[in-house]
């Protein structure tokens, strides 16, 4: 069965009234649960997995696709409206999404997130359908040295989110990397900086860190002045709450780029949607006609990471279905679900269970459509939430954050961490230290450390291994060029600006 026949067959199997009903139910449930901070797609799918496994494989997996896309969109909603990233991949969306909400453009941000997700999801599914065999071959060649090089490159990209001070960006990144080392060392089993706390043995809980630094830190900055008014102004007309044609036109290149970048990065196991979202954000900023708007409420700054975040799903399905390697937490849950259904992901899956695999791929596409059809009309209602007076909204944000963080591990200790990181987030904002590099470095840190140590183990501690392999050598070369650009590019630009000022 070729790819087109397979996809058509999959669509035929998937489009039944029962499947469509459960797809919509899954999408709705996913959005409702995913809107809670701390409950990203992996947690949401885990919570709702027992519901989905009650059906036959095709229906159950179609419902899970709905849950997954709904959860992803729910995460974007809290990022944009409340600056609460539900998962690490939503961190980048917060940067411009929340700024747009503050300018009364929450509806446009939410709308473009849904449209971008749909466009990129389509790219992801097309990529998965036609490029899966080729992409799987490349992914097989990614060993520890390639991952180390990719992570070094990704960490340098993080610095580009640093704002004006590169030095402070590096400080934030190093703190994030250091925080990621806390916990049990996977190689030796030794405890690092846990202070004897059993709760820290598994490391710092990401949700406590990200919600503390972003959401609590933001609340503390916002309530410095006595707040008698609404959080942000929200336009009253329904039409003004949705993206205009101009917005969509402006965001199209970012969506397409995000879709392609997200898919390609998604293929690499472990790289995940976090890397995909911020790499596409950086590319969108660099290729935009209005790069100065990024960080201040650029619609492209929402479209690109949201698109990448979504098409990464298609990419992540490549190693999952062809090799049985889950690329992310969600992938691991999906792998578990496939095994529960008696399916063993691997090279033979497409041949032995074509009747299930193609409907899964088709259901991803249907999930995207359901998301767009259901959530776009809901955008104005979500945006209207911001009409609530801030003095009511911020205690609600604090309480939701506490519940969200507690519900991940049912741990009071994590709530304590939330309070500590909330203060850190506030202090960082007051001292003009950008929080995004810290949070992203915290996510990338363990992958970077593991791959670097594995590479050095493989090479008898010789760093030459990075230059002996073509992919890692290329990535290291790109990282060096990026570092040079970061160092001298900025200086050169500033020198140019000074010259212009003097001339003026």
């Amino acid at each position, binding site marked *: 069965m070729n790819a087109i026949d397979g996809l058509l067959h999959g669509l035929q199997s998937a489009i039944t009234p029962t499947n469509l009903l459960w797809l919509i139910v899954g999408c709705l449930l996913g959005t409702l649960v995913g809107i809670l901070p701390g409950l990203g797609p992996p947690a949401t799918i885990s919570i709702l997995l027992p519901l989905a496994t009650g059906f036959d494989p095709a229906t159950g997996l179609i419902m899970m696709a709905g849950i997954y896309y709904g959860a992803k969109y729910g995460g974007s909603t809290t990022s944009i409206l409340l600056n609460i990233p539900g998962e690490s991949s939503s961190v980048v969306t917060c*940067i411009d999404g929340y700024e747009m909400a503050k300018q009364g453009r929450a509806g446009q941000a939410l709308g473009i997130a849904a449209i971008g997700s749909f466009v990129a999801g389509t790219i992801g599914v097309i990529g998965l359908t036609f490029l899966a065999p080729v992409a799987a071959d490349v992914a097989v060649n990614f060993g520890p040295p390639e991952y180390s090089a990719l992570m070094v490159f990704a960490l340098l990209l993080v610095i580009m989110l640093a704002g004006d001070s590169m030095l402070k960006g590096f400080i934030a990144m190093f703190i994030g990397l250091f925080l990621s080392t806390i916990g049990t060392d996977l190689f030796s089993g030794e405890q690092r900086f846990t202070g004897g706390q059993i709760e820290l043995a598994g490391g710092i809980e990401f949700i406590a860190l990200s919600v503390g630094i972003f959401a609590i830190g933001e609340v503390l900055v916002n309530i410095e002045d006595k707040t008698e008014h609404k959080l942000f102004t929200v336009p009253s007309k329904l039409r003004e709450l949705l993206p205009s044609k101009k917005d969509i036109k402006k965001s199209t290149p970012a969506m397409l780029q995000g879709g392609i970048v997200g898919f390609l990065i998604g293929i690499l196991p472990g790289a995940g949607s976090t890397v995909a979202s911020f790499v596409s954000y950086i590319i969108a900023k660099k290729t935009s006609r209005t790069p100065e708007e990024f960080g201040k409420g650029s619609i492209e700054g929402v479209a690109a990471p949201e698109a990448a975040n979504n098409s990464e799903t298609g990419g992540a399905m490549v190693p999952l279905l062809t090799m049985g390697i889950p690329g992310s937490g969600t992938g691991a849950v999906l792998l578990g679900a496939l095994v529960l259904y008696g399916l063993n992901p691997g090279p033979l899956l497409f041949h032995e269970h074509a009747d299930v695999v193609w409907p899964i791929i088709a259901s991803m596409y249907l999930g995207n459509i359901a998301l767009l059809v259901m959530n776009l009309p809901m955008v104005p209602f979500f945006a209207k939430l911001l009409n609530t007076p801030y003095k009511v909204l911020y205690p609600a944000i604090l309480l939701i954050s506490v519940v969200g963080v507690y519900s991940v591990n049912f741990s009071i200790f994590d709530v304590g961490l939330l309070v500590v990181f909330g203060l850190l987030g506030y202090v960082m904002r007051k001292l*003009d230290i950008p929080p995004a590099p810290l949070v992203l470095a915290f996510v990338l840190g363990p992958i970077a450390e593991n791959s670097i140590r594995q590479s050095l183990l493989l090479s008898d501690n010789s760093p030459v291994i990075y230059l002996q392999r073509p992919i890692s050598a290329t990535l290291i070369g790109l990282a060096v060029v990026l570092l040079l650009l970061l160092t001298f590019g900025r200086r050169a630009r500033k020198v140019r600006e000074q010259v212009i000022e003097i001339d003026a």
Partner: protein
Amino acid sequence: MDQDIVRRSDGGVAPNGEVEKPPVSGDAEQTPAEDAEQTPAEDAGHEAADGDQERDARLTRRVHVVLGLVIAGLGAWLLYRSRTELAFRGTNNEPGPGYLPVLLTLGLIGLGLALSAVWLWGPKARKGEAPTLSLQPRHMGRALLVWLALLVCALLIEPLGFLLAGEVLVLLVIVVVERIRSIPLIITLLLLPPAMYLLFDTLLEVQLPGGTLWY
């Protein structure tokens, strides 16, 4: 957000962490004719604004120098702990558990010292051209009050349970932070913890702490 715009126009911190440059003294769009017609009161106002700006610049410089030293000091302490508590190399000379922490803490020391040096001797800092921080004690006090309310809530969750700890947080916000007198607002805020309890614990079955004092 209105209050944010006001704060940022004073040269405050944008929520994404970026600091905006304070406005230059005087009105940028003022014509020379208008400039000549300035009253003594306006002159005095501008002088006061210049004085505030200079004070902010001095404070910002001092804060950054101290911040750099604190980061370097913290890095040094963590380096000491990494070197003494964790093996830098494993038994086969492979990178050990202390490998990355040592490299990172060395980096932090270097970056902290660099930050202090830049703000001590950097041309922008010396000329007062660098963006200033918004560090007004009255504003920060309000933020810290809310943080303390959250801390109290976190400490009370285990013994009292989510519902009561949530009510304590809300009451602290109503009475201490916001001093709200509007009855509908007070009722709305007091209903927040039970509403959340109903949504999460009862409907979504996310079991919230019930309180060790009662169970």
